[in-house]
């Protein structure tokens, strides 16, 4: 790995006033070979992830696993506490978990009746996995970030679009990267302190 070219610098931040300019700039930066960079916008911009060359997220798979966990949890909880398992298993299940309740002679393993809680817990676990998975993978909560030092960046949540090439990028060179970003005709171009 290259050492950062400019100590004390987080990266260079270019500001644009419309989403298309940001997509074009990100695309140019990717073609140039930059990798450690990100775009910033007040709303999701279509095609920006592709232009930046970032991979798709694995979140759907993670959320599926979360949902499956909820499904199995509810199934096992209901089956085992209702005594839905074979009697031979009793030896392996603690007494306090084993509560055979004869309701009008219905089978102990009445799985049809277990479906609603299974469904609800599947949904509940998926929802928790979705939100917390998104937060953790995004590296949040992080109330402070070097980008917030740049005055212009306040408008990233309102009406401006930013591209930040970070100093840890192997290709990053303070002068060359500056020149390159300047060639994309941004409204402003700022150095982001570490």
């Amino acid at each position, binding site marked *: 790995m290259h050492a950062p070219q400019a100590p004390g610098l987080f990266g260079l931040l270019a500001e644009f006033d419309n*989403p*298309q*300019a940001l*997509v074009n700039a*990100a695309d*140019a930066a990717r073609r140039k070979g930059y990798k450690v960079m*990100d*775009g*910033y*916008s*007040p*709303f*999701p*911009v*279509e*095609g*920006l*992830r592709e232009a*930046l060359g*970032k991979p*798709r*997220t694995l*979140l*759907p798979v993670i959320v599926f696993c979360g949902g499956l966990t909820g499904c199995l949890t509810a199934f096992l909880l*209901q089956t085992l*506490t*209702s005594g839905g398992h074979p009697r031979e298993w009793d030896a392996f299940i603690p007494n*306090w*978990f084993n*509560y055979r*309740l004869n*309701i009008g002679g219905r089978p102990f393993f009445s799985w049809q*009746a277990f479906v*609603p*809680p299974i*469904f*609800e*817990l599947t*949904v*509940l676990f*998926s*929802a*928790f996995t*979705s*939100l917390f998975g*998104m937060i953790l993978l*995004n590296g*949040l*909560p992080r*109330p402070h*970030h070097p*980008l*917030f030092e740049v005055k212009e*960046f*306040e*408008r*990233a*949540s*309102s*009406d401006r679009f930013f591209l930040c090439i970070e100093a840890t990028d192997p290709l990053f060179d303070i002068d060359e990267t500056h020149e390159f970003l300047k060639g994309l005709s941004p409204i402003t171009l700022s150095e982001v302190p570490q």
Partner: protein
Amino acid sequence: MATKEVAKNQADGESLFTGTYNFSTVTSKINDIVLRSTPKGWIFGFLVSFMVLQALLMALTWLIYEGIGTWGVNIPVGWGFDIINFVWWIGIGHAGTLISAILLLFHQKWRTSINRFAEAMTLFAVACAGIYPLAHMGRPWFFYWLLPYPTTMQLWPQFRSPLIWDVFAVSTYATVSLLFWYTGLIPDLSSMRDRAKNRWIKMIYGILCLGWRGAATHWHRYETIYLLLAGISTPLVLSVHTIVSFDFAVGNVPGWHATIFPPYFVAGAIFSGFAMVVTLAAPARLAYGLKDFITDKHMDNMAKVMLATGLMVFYGYGVEAFMAYYSGSPDERGLFLKNRAFGPYGVFYLLLILCNGIIPQLLWFRFFRTNIPWLFVISIVINIGMWLERFVILMSLQRIPWQSSTWGQYCPTVWDITAYVGTFGLFFTLLFLFMRFVPMISAFEMKHMMPESHTHAPGASHAGGSH
């Protein structure tokens, strides 16, 4: 070009935006409502709601001190105002999820400006609904007996009972609605942080938004889970009211034991929920000058949903009557005719047909869908009608159990009524707090919907690229 489009859309009455806005003015128009100093009308509304909330606290305190006998419920009518109001409130909540999740999946763009508001309504309605089953337990401090946990008594919940399903459904629904609402809020909270001038306010919003900075990789994950949450909320909302209807339908009481109950309950929930959204949105958009975002087109669309679901509900009434006749069972027939339609509570049944079946037919006419005062009145009539529906379902059946020696009547006590009125206090208190402290329209989704936000792949034939 944009102005021409707006003009054209206005001519079609199709506009989801009126006036000319850009990204910056959309942000300030929505967020500055929160950052401005407190309007006098808000203080008045909040104080009134807060006073009414005290009625709820008083009623609940008295209930807990004195016991469930302060309510009008007894044998044979064990389910009174508590269950009626529980079903009514939770049904109202369903429109919020429908607007935020189902309409998102169907790419209905008009949901954008009302989804935040409707989701907040869902949360607060569920909070009101949740009070009733808890209070009705008699010893509410043992509410945790409903949850599956290892007790020293070695007892577990009876998982074959719809009442336990209800615990799972309603608590999941409340939690998922909260998560979904919060997810939607994150980007707008970050925008509040950036616009706030006061250091403390900035810090509070900065913590609430988790330090959101709108990175492309973050947006990608955000959009992915927003869609996933919408996808799982859609069957969830249907399941919740289905399970609520199971509380009735799984029992063997004539008139409750019907397969029409789940779809008929879900349609009724959406019907009443949209009515409540209209009831709240009509004054709110006027008070906050948001007619440019919540346009007449939105009101028109909501009125159409009310009309459609109202017809489904009306069909449900028809099927109930037909099934009572077609069953051939004297119990079912007698119950329907002698007790529901023309019995001691018959007047409520007829009022219900008027409120839910006949008056909503006015919505076939464009005049009533776009004339906001009329629409407001109709939405209140529907809210009343849906309350009557639950009253009729519960009352006309419970009062005549199988043995005529145990027949009885139900009359709510003053504490039943106080508690019901009090939940409005809770609902509106929370709603006023919501309108004061968070942006009530999803600003980032509004911006995302504007034509200026659309991009095309770089290097495509559109040279120049800016628009």
